[in-house]
């Protein structure tokens, strides 16, 4: 008989205890994984925002709760464009609109047609809109397909019907799901003349991106550069908040899960004093006892992880169908989600079982054998 088969046997024989412990771990895993899925979804959106402009880095207003609420002026755009090392700076005004129940969160991008090329836009159908046209839009290829709309057709968006004059590709899911307006009419519609949301900056060849970004940060205290997803929280406090909440919830879930596992294992330890005494009396080492108890907990932990991932999948699916979250939350089940589940369950099981395992190993065999 191997240690692994004994561990499996013990877990299987003590089904009720194993199932209850696995469920406790599953709840922790579910919490962590669901939050992870939500955070990943938000992260994917953030990454989309950063990548849509094909820029070296993005500039936003510092300290806003949501990066889409960032407010920059065209005067600031002009200043940034003059900074050393800046090859081009494209300013866009962003908003979102609930187009229909299937498309509850369509991103609207106001952009000057002269900047389309620098912004990484490739027109794949029709033409670019005119700079001052109030009734023209271009649709991202995904959105056009989604709306089943062709060049020349009309859609009702913003302040009324608009003609789709072009279909574009950006090579980015976020961008290709957006609708683009000529900047000036869009600023007027948004009642933000001269207003922008984000600046997308490309540096001159040979310039160091971080150095240029830092120089702009230093020169413009109200602006903040974002060169990577890791820096996204600098401009979007909601993102920062949810990332922090995700981390805090993970810690809380692990601690609570570990306490539940420890409680269960300690109760089980009392029931199993005699068993451990027997094993020590017939020559088992302390290390082997520790391995047995930890092994049982970790095996139960993996079962809890599997249940927890299933529960998280269900919860994330329900959340993504809530009216307030349709189109916002796109659950993605990456390998990272499963690694996270396994790590959480492993940590919960290991931390929860460590103390009971050490106590079991330290039992005097004689004392343990005398216990009833």
């Amino acid at each position: 008989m191997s240690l692994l088969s004994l561990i499996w046997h013990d877990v299987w024989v003590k089904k009720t205890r194993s199932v209850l412990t696995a469920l406790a771990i599953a709840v922790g895993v579910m919490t962590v994984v669901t939050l992870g899925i939500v955070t990943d979804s938000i992260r994917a959106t953030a990454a989309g925002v950063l990548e849509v402009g094909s820029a070296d880095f993005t500039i936003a207003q510092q300290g806003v709760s949501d990066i889409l609420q960032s407010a920059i002026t065209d005067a600031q755009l002009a200043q940034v464009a003059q900074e050393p090392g800046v090859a081009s700076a494209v300013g866009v005004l962003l908003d979102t609109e609930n187009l229909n129940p299937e498309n509850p969160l369509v991103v609207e991008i106001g952009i000057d047609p002269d900047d389309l090329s620098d912004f990484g836009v490739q027109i794949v159908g029709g033409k670019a809109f005119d700079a001052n046209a109030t009734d023209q839009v271009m649709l991202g290829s995904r959105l056009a397909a989604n709306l089943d709309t062709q060049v020349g057709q009309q859609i009702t968006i913003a302040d009324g019907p608009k003609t789709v004059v072009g279909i574009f590709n950006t090579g980015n899911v976020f961008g290709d799901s957006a609708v683009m307006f000529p900047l000036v009419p869009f600023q007027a519609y948004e009642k933000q003349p001269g207003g922008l949301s984000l600046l997308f900056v490309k540096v001159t060849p040979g310039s160091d991106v971080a150095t240029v970004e830092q120089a702009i940060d230093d020169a413009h205290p109200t602006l903040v550069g974002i060169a990577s997803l890791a820096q996204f929280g600098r401009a979007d406090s909601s993102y920062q908040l949810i990332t922090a909440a995700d981390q805090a919830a993970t810690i809380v879930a692990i601690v609570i899960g570990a306490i539940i596992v420890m409680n269960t294992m300690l109760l089980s330890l009392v029931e199993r004093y005699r068993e451990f005494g027997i094993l020590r009396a017939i020559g088992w080492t302390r290390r082997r006892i520790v391995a047995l108890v930890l092994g049982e907990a970790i095996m139960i932990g993996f079962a809890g992880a599997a249940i927890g991932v299933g529960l998280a999948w269900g919860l994330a699916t329900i959340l993504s169908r809530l009216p307030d979250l349709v189109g916002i939350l796109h659950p993605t089940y990456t390998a990272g989600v499963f690694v996270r589940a396994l790590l959480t369950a492993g940590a919960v099981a290991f931390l929860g079982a460590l103390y009971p395992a050490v106590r079991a190993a330290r039992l005097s065999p004689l004392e343990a054998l005398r216990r009833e």
Partner: protein
Amino acid sequence: MSDMPTAMIEAIDLRKSYDGGVIEALDGVTLTIAPQEFVAITGPSGCGKSTLLHMLAALDRPDSGTITVDGHDLTDLHQPNRYRRDVIGLVFQLHNLLPHLNARQNIEVAMMGTGHSRKEQRARANELLAAVDLGGLEERRPPQLSGGERQRVAIARALANHPQVLLADEPTGSLDSAAVERTLALLASLRRDSDVTIVMVTHDPVVAAATDRTIHLRDGRVSA
């Protein structure tokens, strides 16, 4: 295993007290047991016979005195678990089998960590169960066995790693007379067919009479 010693077990002036010296469990016990001897340790309740057996099993230590088993100085034993696994076999009055494992698994558990493959463990367990006349009951768990059968599984487990010494603490204490006879016959056959030294604690003079020699303890001392 060391070279064959003249004494398999040698205890000199063993002393052990509890409750700050109020209870003198062993009060200068000195004894020698030869290899392959079958010895009974008898005496009234509280005379120290179980304490002595626990010391021979390295489950307890004397306050003073020396104790050597198969050349191992038990007062200076660095790996008592290894000693219990490789040198001795232990049989308890209440069999102390693991109730959730079947008869064969109870024996295999004693062989874990010895380097034997699962196949070898299984073969050895089946061989031992056959030797104690329990062939065919390998899959039964302790609650599905009679008291005598459980005790024979416990003896088989104690023999799993080919011990030099078999230590039995009242192995017949909870058995009916038929099971007592059968257990004694099994121990006698072990004595006859193997080179194991057997030390059996018992308070039953009839059981003690089945051994080669009786060491009688009284008030923590050897009295005969």
